[in-house]
């Protein structure tokens, strides 16, 4: 691979990553532990050195730990936050070399080939790392070797540096567990009398493979460098923000719009290369008096066309108070969605784009969630036979079926006077005296028992279409379980 270049790998292990992170935020004195509910009990997830000296260990039930050490202070563990913290550390570690990968939940692996001399040699680089981590309040163990496996073994079992070349002398005295094998395998190896890596390396290979499978010797070969092992650097997520600083403050709307256009062109080029479109945009205007004003824009669909986005900003930007002038603009796409490149054709829906732009523009005035569309739903209950969904976050759907004619408008049930199960011949509704001329029904609709619905507590409903002599065509229902008549809708 690298002819004549010696590969060097650093493995960083943070044995107390979670508790160090918690203590960085709120330092406490004395024994401290983080607890997490595991295997149906509150157990110690991570603990500091003082707690470990008291005889506590990871995985111990928290109740036992409290009995051993009454002065133990504890907090809830947040594994998700720890993971994010590890990613932050990974970004920090890229100051030493560009190839930094994650090693499990609590470690980093770095390929420092060719970059050690920038820090004055390997020793100086490791000292710099130790100093940085110590200042950050993190306990870390560092291993440096030619291979990833050897560096891991050194980091986890006795810190140290393996000199270039053959790694076996440095690893010889380490236990077999340092080969990244599981516990059962290492216990079995110890029962066979193979305690250290040195013992394992001297044993005949064929019986070992037959007994343990190829995994064990693969790990050994990876540690000794006879089998290659790669380090995958973790790619930074794309960053969708651009900014512009001006030598002189600006205040006119046309100037701010011109600035926003320049930023949009840059941002949209970025979006295009990633094949995504912006859903939410936020432009931050910093004034000369250090005040900040944000203008947010929600789009009805993902977009990356500057000419279409820019007019939508006009309303928001016109409300900004420029004060003594604006000298910095920052545009960020706070929410992006995938928007694959599409073939331009003459049959594409022409009016759809204009409608989406209109929805975005109206959304800045009344809120995007107040612009809605109807989607079909699978229910016989009249109110639930359709869904009202925000138009910006749903696609139009077809497939409307109605076996029975349904009213053109619905309103909350309005009680009317009625005697029995037949529709009343004369009734008053909304101060109008109405006379039944024709009735069609009943159509029985049962409540959906699997859904709690306050309005359907009265039980079954028998729906009737009632055409009155006065002209109004109403949708009445009768509730046989709680006798009563109601009007719920009006037909065309």
């Amino acid at each position, binding site marked *: 691979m690298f002819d004549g270049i010696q590969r060097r790998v650093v493995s960083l292990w943070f044995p107390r990553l979670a508790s160090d992170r918690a203590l960085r935020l709120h330092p406490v004195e004395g024994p401290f532990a983080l607890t997490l509910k595991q295997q149906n009990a509150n157990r110690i997830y991570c603990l500091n050195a003082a707690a470990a000296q008291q005889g506590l260990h990871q995985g111990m039930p928290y109740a036992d730990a409290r009995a051993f050490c009454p002065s133990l202070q504890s907090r809830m563990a947040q594994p998700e936050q720890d993971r994010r913290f590890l990613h932050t550390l990974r970004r920090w570690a890229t100051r030493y070399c560009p190839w930094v990968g994650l090693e499990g939940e609590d470690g980093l692996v770095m390929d420092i080939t060719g970059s050690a001399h920038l820090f004055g040699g390997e020793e100086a680089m490791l000292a710099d790392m130790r100093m940085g981590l110590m200042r950050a309040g993190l306990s870390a163990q560092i291993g440096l070797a030619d291979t990833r496996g050897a560096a891991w073994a050194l980091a986890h079992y006795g810190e140290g540096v393996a000199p270039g070349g053959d790694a076996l002398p440095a690893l010889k005295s380490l236990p077999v567990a340092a080969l990244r094998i599981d516990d059962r395998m290492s216990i079995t190896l110890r029962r066979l009398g193979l305690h250290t890596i040195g013992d394992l390396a001297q044993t005949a290979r064929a019986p070992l493979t037959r007994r343990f499978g190829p995994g064990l010797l693969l790990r050994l070969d990876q540690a000794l460098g006879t089998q290659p092992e790669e380090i995958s650097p973790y790619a930074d997520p794309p960053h969708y923000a651009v900014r512009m600083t001006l030598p002189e403050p600006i205040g006119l709307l046309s100037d701010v719009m011109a600035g926003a256009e320049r930023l949009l062109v840059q941002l949209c080029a970025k979006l295009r290369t990633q094949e995504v479109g912006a859903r939410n945009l936020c432009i931050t205007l910093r004034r000369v008096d250090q005040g900040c004003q944000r203008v947010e824009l929600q789009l009805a669909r993902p977009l990356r066309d500057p000419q279409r986005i820019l007019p939508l900003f006009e309303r928001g930007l016109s409300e900004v108070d420029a004060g003594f002038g604006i000298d910095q603009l920052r545009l960020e796409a706070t929410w992006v969605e995938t928007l694959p490149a599409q073939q331009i054709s003459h049959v594409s829906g022409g*009016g759809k784009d*204009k*409608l989406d*732009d*209109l*929805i975005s*523009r*109206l959304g800045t*005035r*009344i809120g995007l969630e*107040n*612009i*809605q*569309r*109807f989607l*079909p739903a699978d229910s016989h209950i*009249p109110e639930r*036979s*359709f869904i*009202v969904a925000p*138009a910006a976050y749903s696609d*139009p*759907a*077809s497939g*409307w079926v*109605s076996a029975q*004619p*349904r*009213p*053109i*408008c*619905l*309103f*909350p049930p309005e009680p009317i006077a009625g005697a029995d199960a037949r529709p009343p011949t004369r009734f008053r509704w909304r101060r109008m005296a109405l006379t039944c*001329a*024709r009735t069609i029904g009943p159509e029985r609709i049962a409540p959906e028992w699997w859904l709690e619905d306050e309005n359907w507590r009265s039980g079954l409903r028998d729906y009737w279409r009632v*055409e*009155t*002599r*006065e*002209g*109004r*065509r109403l949708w009445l229902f009768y509730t046989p379980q709680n006798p009563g008549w109601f009007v719920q*809708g*009006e*037909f*065309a």
Partner: protein
Amino acid sequence: MQHAEVPFFPPTASRTHEVCGAGAYVFAFALAARLAGYTMWVRENWDSTQINPTGFVDFVEPSVLTVCNTGKHTETLAVAEEALRSGAVSLVVMSLNQPLGLTEGRRLQLAARDGMSTGLAIIPEGMGSNAAETRWRCTPVFDPKDSTLQKWELIKNKSGTLGVWHVRWDTASRRITMVSPARK
């Protein structure tokens, strides 16, 4: 002529019209079906009467309809004006509960003219604006044989005569047909 078209329907494009009466929704949906294209329906969010897509699917496909819920009267007018001016929709229906002033009515006319789309205000009886191009009163009429009979009265027309017609909705051809008075 049994199936004649209603005169003045659809009302002049690029103008804002008004409709009142119990059959106003039918008029709005019939107009949406006739104009084709997208329809914007602007209503105030406290209004408990809701249009029912399973009911108006006989008139227009619910997917062409976009509903805007606004907070107050002026917001409704602003949204309607913006939608009319954009030209993205062929019909903007706004349901109003307050009288419309001459200025607002005129602005709606100008917006409709700029965007070349039709506006329709559903108004309470007797609360029309003088700026409206036409005003219709629609009332359902009982008919023993038919369930869609309506009486449409043209009660204001800036560029033509007034009139009264009996119409019914033909679901199969999705259009309004006029019923001759003789049949009535």
